[in-house]
């Protein structure tokens, strides 16, 4: 066995010389070859360092204490094929139930949807004095008229130079195409068609098909956000602005998504339109859990979402969205910024299964 072969063996044993017979000749070689012995010590040091560094890093990080509750909430989501009317209610309910139970990128798009609806309702209230129930009904109707649209969404963190961008097409009721870019490099594409999810990643360069209970509707369609209306209280009316040649009203809303008081209000709104006994039971338990937290004076996480949105004054469709979500995470302040621009409303958008 020459020095080159020995070197390969040294790396393969990851810093710990096995006692096996296979490595007996390696040991013999090291005993007589100072160069290889030096190499061995260097590799052993590197491996020990890798282990130490990784263990140190892992020791500093731990899952959120709410992880299991979040996972349960996400598991409880039970997407299904249903009529448009029932679908709206279901989607609204899923949004409400899963707002902070979803991955951040889904939340971001969802928040944009909420913003669209809330802003539409606010405009309506400004021009015509309507009861809240009437405003909600009008907003629901307007939202259901959007059958297809495109969203460009970005996310970034204050302490990181990474920028994630997603180009998303929606075709109601059950098609969605999502292309993700990390630092402007395409990293993923997913196409949801009915219950099928086709996904492509830059890692494999191949399309994969997953058939199951995928729910493209839950990833940010515009009709999802109505249930937050009654829960968001701090809204500022800002001067009108023109976005993409469309004259828009500009609103700012502030809320704490982790505040149980806010969450209870949200759940009560959801129950009003929910028919599924299992779903209602879930929300009622959530209310009880949250009310118990309130009664016990549970500490409310210091978390704030400040949303800005720009809505067309003529058609009430959202054109632009901006959100800054601040919270304590792993002992330090995390600030995530999301933006979204909406376009191609009701224009023909085709989403087909890829060739595999």
């Amino acid at each position, binding site marked *: 066995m020459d020095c080159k072969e020995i070197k*390969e063996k040294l*790396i*393969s044993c*990851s810093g710990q010389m096995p006692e096996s017979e296979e490595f007996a000749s390696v040991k013999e070689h090291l005993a007589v070859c100072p160069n290889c012995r030096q190499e061995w010590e*260097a*590799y052993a*040091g*590197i*491996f020990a*360092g*890798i*282990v*130490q*560094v*990784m*263990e*140190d*890093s*892992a020791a500093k*990080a*731990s*899952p*959120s204490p709410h*992880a*299991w509750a*979040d*996972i*349960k909430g*996400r*598991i409880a989501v039970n997407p299904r094929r249903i009529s448009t009317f029932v679908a709206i209610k279901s989607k609204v309910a899923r949004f409400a139930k899963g707002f902070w*139970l979803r*991955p*951040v*990128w889904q939340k971001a798009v969802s928040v944009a949807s909420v913003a669209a609806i809330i802003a539409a309702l606010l405009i309506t209230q400004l021009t015509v004095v309507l009861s809240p129930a009437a405003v909600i009904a009008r907003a629901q109707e307007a939202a259901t008229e959007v059958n297809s649209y495109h969203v460009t969404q970005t996310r970034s*963190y204050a302490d*990181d130079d*990474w920028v*994630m961008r997603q180009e998303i097409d929606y075709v109601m009721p059950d098609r969605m195409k999502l292309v*993700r870019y*990390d*630092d402007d*490099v395409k*990293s*993923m594409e997913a196409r949801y068609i009915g219950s099928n999810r086709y*996904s492509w*990643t830059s*890692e*494999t360069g191949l399309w994969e098909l997953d058939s*199951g*209970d995928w729910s493209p509707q839950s990833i940010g369609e515009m009709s999802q956000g109505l249930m937050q209306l009654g829960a968001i209280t701090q809204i500022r009316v800002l001067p009108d602005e023109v976005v993409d040649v469309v004259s828009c009203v500009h609103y700012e809303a502030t809320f704490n998504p982790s505040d149980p008081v806010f969450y209870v209000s949200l759940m009560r709104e959801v129950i009003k339109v929910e028919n599924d006994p299992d779903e209602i039971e879930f929300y009622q338990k959530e209310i009880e859990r949250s009310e118990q937290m309130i009664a016990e004076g549970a500490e409310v996480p210091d978390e704030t979402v400040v949303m800005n949105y720009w809505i067309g004054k003529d058609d009430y469709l959202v054109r632009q969205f901006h959100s800054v979500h601040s919270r304590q*995470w*792993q002992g330090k302040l*995390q600030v*995530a910024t999301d933006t979204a621009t909406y376009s191609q409303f009701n224009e023909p958008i085709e989403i087909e299964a890829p060739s595999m």
Partner: protein
Amino acid sequence: MILAKQGKLDDFEQIFHEYKGWVYKTAYLIVQNPQQAEDIMQEVFVRAYKSNGTFDHQKGSYSTWLRRITINRCLNGHRNGASSTASIEEMEEQGQSIPDNGLGVLDQISLKDDIRNLIDSLGAKYRAALVLRCVDGLAYDEIAEVLGIPLGTVKSRINRAVEALREKRKSMEKEAQK
């Protein structure tokens, strides 16, 4: 091993508590972002719960299956590391070694700091192989099974990552001696 059947959330909670630490740690080490690691962990368990019917114990252990879901989720769809996953290949083509993240030699005093910087500069698929090898202590054939790649590719990834670290270390030592 208690295997949760679909719909038995209480059983699955036991599995969650048994594996959450490993799943989160692995995701965190690979994607190097706590928020993304949290997202990945949640997605892994949601998927594991909903896919339990597809788990075939004759094809491997539950932990191996969960490992595979975790690693795949880390590599598919998360942002790459500080440099692209092709960095090692690209640098080798250019006759270069791993970059030092802009830090001067004098700033990189300890081996530990050097390694931390160098690990950060690796692509995710190299970090995944290193995590499975150096932290989980898996054998190469086990890593191949988890990653779903040939044994030779596993060896190649680990060897190249370690070799890159070794070369970088050498060059830094030379610089320090000047």
